[in-house]
């Protein structure tokens, strides 16, 4: 079997497939379960400085092509989350804490209070006022927040970017200037759905973020653009549902791949994807390094 292990954004992973932030990441037990199902790393639900209940429901709209969600950053705050990270570590793979805040100081406060194997900065959630993409669309903020967290911690810091901008490379370059060890692209695309029976917007928060197969071509394009513009690694996320999707991400230049919405079909998809990548590399006689960014070299 071809080895899938390698360095991804400063972490040594047994395979490049990770659990994406916001998916099965509220409890340590569920993250451990995802790790035991074969993920190379897990990323927690985004954690902030104060407890938040999140938005009223409906919080998700299921579509044939994906999912729109507006959870609203529910979390118990960093004060109640360390034990979940410790439990998740029982899965034997790195646990990356996704964190959010409204300022560089708040990000640094949350990061310095948590013991995790890495941090992923949520500068891209499209449905929480004053957080996520509301501050993460501004390259100055991205750079400053990244720098503040890098100063506060000694583990790798990744920056998750929003695709809801004209040129995502500008945000990636800002994260790189701030000292990020990797960027993660993409968060969800701003979206909504309306109930035709009543005219009501379906989501409690009206606006949410689209994930799933519908956004994979957009995510792939973002990974392609970022990997051409940045020196630091790019981690691809957005609509990956099968091994071919993951291989595409790697061929676009991704150092690692995250999976989220596809877990709706069951945790077995993790093993299906990693096994699929292995078999593919074996059939072709290629290594992960051979295919990483190959599309950039060819097109």
């Amino acid at each position, binding site marked *: 079997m071809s080895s899938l292990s390698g360095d991804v954004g400063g972490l040594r992973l047994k395979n490049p497939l990770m659990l994406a932030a916001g998916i099965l990441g509220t*409890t340590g037990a569920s993250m451990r379960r995802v790790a035991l199902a074969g993920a190379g790393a897990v990323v927690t639900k985004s954690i902030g400085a104060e407890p938040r209940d999140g938005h009223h429901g*409906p919080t998700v709209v299921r579509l044939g092509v994906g999912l729109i969600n507006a959870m609203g950053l*529910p979390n*118990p705050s960093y004060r109640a989350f360390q034990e*979940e990270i410790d439990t998740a570590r029982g899965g034997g793979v790195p646990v990356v804490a996704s964190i959010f805040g409204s300022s560089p100081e708040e990000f640094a406060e949350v990061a310095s209070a948590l013991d995790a194997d890495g941090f992923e900065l949520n500068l891209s959630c499209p449905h929480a006022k004053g957080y996520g993409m509301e501050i993460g669309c501004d390259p100055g903020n991205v750079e400053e927040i990244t720098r503040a967290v890098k100063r506060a911690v000694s583990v790798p810091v990744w920056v998750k970017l929003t695709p809801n901008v004209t040129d995502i490379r500008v945000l990636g370059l800002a994260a790189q200037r701030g000292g990020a060890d990797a960027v993660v692209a993409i968060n969800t695309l701003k979206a909504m759905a309306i109930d035709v029976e009543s005219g009501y917007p379906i989501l*409690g928060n009206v606006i949410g973020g689209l994930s799933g197969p519908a956004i994979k071509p957009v995510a792939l394009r973002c990974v392609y653009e970022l990997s051409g513009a940045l020196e630091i690694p790019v981690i691809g996320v957005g609509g990956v549902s099968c091994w071919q999707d993951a291989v595409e991400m790697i061929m676009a230049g991704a150092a690692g791949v995250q999976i989220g919405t596809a877990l709706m079909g069951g945790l077995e998809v993790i093993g299906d994807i990693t096994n699929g990548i292995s078999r593919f590399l074996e059939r072709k006689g290629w290594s992960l390094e051979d295919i990483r960014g190959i599309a950039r070299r060819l097109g």
Partner: protein
Amino acid sequence: MRFRPANLVIKDVIRETASVSTIRFDRSLDPTPGQYIMVWVRGVDEIPMSFSAPDSITVHAVGDATRALCALRPGESVGSRGPLGNGFRLIGENILLIGGGVGVAPLAFLGEDAKARGIDVTSLIGFRCREDIIFLDRFRRLGDVILTTDDGSAGIKGRASAGLSEIDPEDYNQIYLCGPEMMMIDIIRRWREDASRIQASINRYFKCAVGICGSCCLDPEGIRVCVEGPVITGDRLLESEFGRYRRGPSGMRESCY
């Protein structure tokens, strides 16, 4: 498969007690007993509700969404997703239902389904007081009924567990529970040896109801209650957080009382 919220028109709102109402829809949703639907009260919230019959839910008005639901009138409608979850599995020829409060609702539905299949049904149902009793006639039509009330105003005085002395769990192929968490865990612990033959319908905080947000996951296995439940066997619950703590909407641990 249908993904968008389905529109459910309300045919009847039946007041069962001062705070419990049955909402009957204009059509059957063909659920398995123990399954639930996410009911969207437009402009308010979306909440999970167990079926009390193929075409109805029975709602205890305790929060914004449940109160708004009980205030709806025939001809008005709600959005819905479902039926969702696993539901109860009928096993054996002789079953026992144990319910507390509004938790008896899915058990009445289960019992009627079981009886129609020729299964013998015995019920133990508990309420706070005579005024809170619901579905007593439905249970009596199924078979023997043991009734308890906390204040003794009807049946045996005490919690549902006060009726357990009248019952030998060995007499039943399968035991079905739905009610307050501490009532259910108390019974599962007392009948520890029979826990694998107990199926309990449990509550956790559901948000997505599609098995990915993680808010309903049960320690220590990480069981996704919204898709792998809400019916979980007693042996798995004995080893879990159930009866010890639960998590609220933020993910913070809370008491399960």
